[in-house]
């Protein structure tokens, strides 16, 4: 069974849960099996939030937390210093981080994107989840089409917010370099 696991770290209000759901939705649109679930605490702005996405060729039986992710997505760079955030990354895994400047993490391939800058420019607010989805799509390469992600967004946004977020995902995808 081929399985890709992602762990999302963000702060309440940044949209980590929605991004993880939209990615699972995109995978389901493509005909894969997927699960997305949040680790809920008290829902409040600013509190650390984590969410998981699992994507597989086969039905996913369990609902264990993602302990050994293939990709760790960090929506707020300040979270990188929290010990648990980088734990368990697979040996050839990726860290995708919202940062204006390059970031290094021992033993990991790191991709960075100024999601805050992009989101502020397009949305007028630093809600970085969809920009980070664009970066994640870049990391997933052939395995996840950016079109499926923009299609999936329709389940979470509507009207003008949907069209801006679709543009944001595409811009973020273009702006991310591996």
């Amino acid at each position, binding site marked *: 069974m*081929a*399985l*890709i696991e992602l762990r999302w770290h963000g702060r309440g209000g940044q949209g980590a849960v929605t991004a993880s*759901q939209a990615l*699972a*939705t995109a995978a*389901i*649109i*493509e*005909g*894969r*099996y*997927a*699960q*997305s*679930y*949040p680790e*809920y605490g*008290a829902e409040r702005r600013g509190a650390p939030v984590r969410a998981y996405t699992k*994507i*597989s*060729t*086969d039905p*996913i*039986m*369990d*609902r*264990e*937390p993602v302990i050994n992710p*293939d*990709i760790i997505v960090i929506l707020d760079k300040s979270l990188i210093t929290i010990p648990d955030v980088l734990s368990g990354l697979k040996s*050839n895994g*990726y860290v995708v981080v919202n940062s204006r400047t390059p970031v290094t993490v021992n033993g990991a391939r790191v991709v960075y994107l100024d999601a805050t800058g992009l989101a502020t420019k397009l949305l007028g607010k630093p809600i970085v989840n969809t920009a980070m989805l664009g970066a994640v799509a*870049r*990391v*997933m*390469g*052939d*395995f996840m089409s950016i079109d499926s992600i923009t299609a*999936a967004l329709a*389940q979470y946004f509507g009207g003008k917010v949907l069209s801006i977020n679709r543009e944001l995902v595409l811009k973020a995808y273009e702006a991310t370099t*591996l």
Partner: protein
Amino acid sequence: MIEKAVGKSTGPTRVALTGNYAAAYAAKMADIDLVAIYPITPQTTIAEKLSEFVADGELAAELIHVESEHSALSATIGGAAVGARAFTATSSQGLELMHEILHIAAGLRLPIVMAVPSRALSAPISIHNDNSDIMNARETGWIMLNASDAQEVFDMVIQAFKIAEDPRVLLPVMVTYDGFVVSHTVEGVELPDAEAVRSFIPKGKWHALDPSRPSSMGPIAGPDWYYEIKFGQYHAMRDSIKVIAEVMDGFGKKFGRNYSPVVGYMMGDADFAVVTYGVTWGFVKTAVDRARSMGIKAGAIKLNVIRPFPSDAVISYLRGLKSFAVVDRAIYYGAPSPGPVYTDVASALFMSGHAVPALNVIHGIGQRTMYINDFVEVFKELTKLDESKVIFMGVRE
């Protein structure tokens, strides 16, 4: 970029839905006439989705705004009492506030369907998942189905209407599942054609109030009749297991997804088994595979039906085992065993004259994280179990 290749499945088209949305879509496809829900975490997104369906004109149901769960179920009873297909949903403290009315819905023999994503009970407050709330409702006269994932939630809500409205049953049905871990998890769900659903569950007719034949419902019964009425209710519940099995079988034939009151996994040659319900099922099936790779003849069973308790099917699986465990995600204070389903299984086994050592595993209380390997440990424990006992997994003593 990532080097893995995760192939696409060739199965039927699935839609990404949470467990709660699956419940709301099922209620919509069942063409419910009335919905009355009071919001409570983690149920609220069902109320939101159904309100959206009504507001957008996709569902022609009467949506009644209520000020509590007590009123939500009361309004739902009112709807069912005039012959409407009525639906509600709740969780945790909301189910507790409804408790008085749960008995009334069952006593009036009204075919209401309710979705219950389960959540731990206060105090202390926990918004997280365990099964204390639903287990506390087992003796209220409701049929209780239990789903392990979003697909099962959808399918069981459809089945629930057919079971509830069957003239041989006429009892309210709860579709229970785990809060957050199912209610808020996005998964792929196969949505059948709405017409196929409607032809599977044509709207039933029951003893509804009718102005042309005035009657009253649930008036006082004296010692000369009360007992017989309750005896009838007991029989309806006990015999409903046959209808449940029949409906599940018919559902499988029509929609291609098979259900039965109890499901077994690798039970053919098993010496040791774990009895589960809810999300634990998925963990335990993987644990069975791991235990088998270590040479343990492991198997698992899952209860799709909690009430009426499917004693015969459970015993047919457990008979002949060397030992078994029941995993409960609720604590019964001061009971002979702390796990409610363990108590049920033990009673069924005692009445059938079979006895083997059995472990009661308490786990996942207040959504304490469960791991697959926890259940591999349970299988190892079963191989050396010589007397029944209780394990509180993962607790700091």
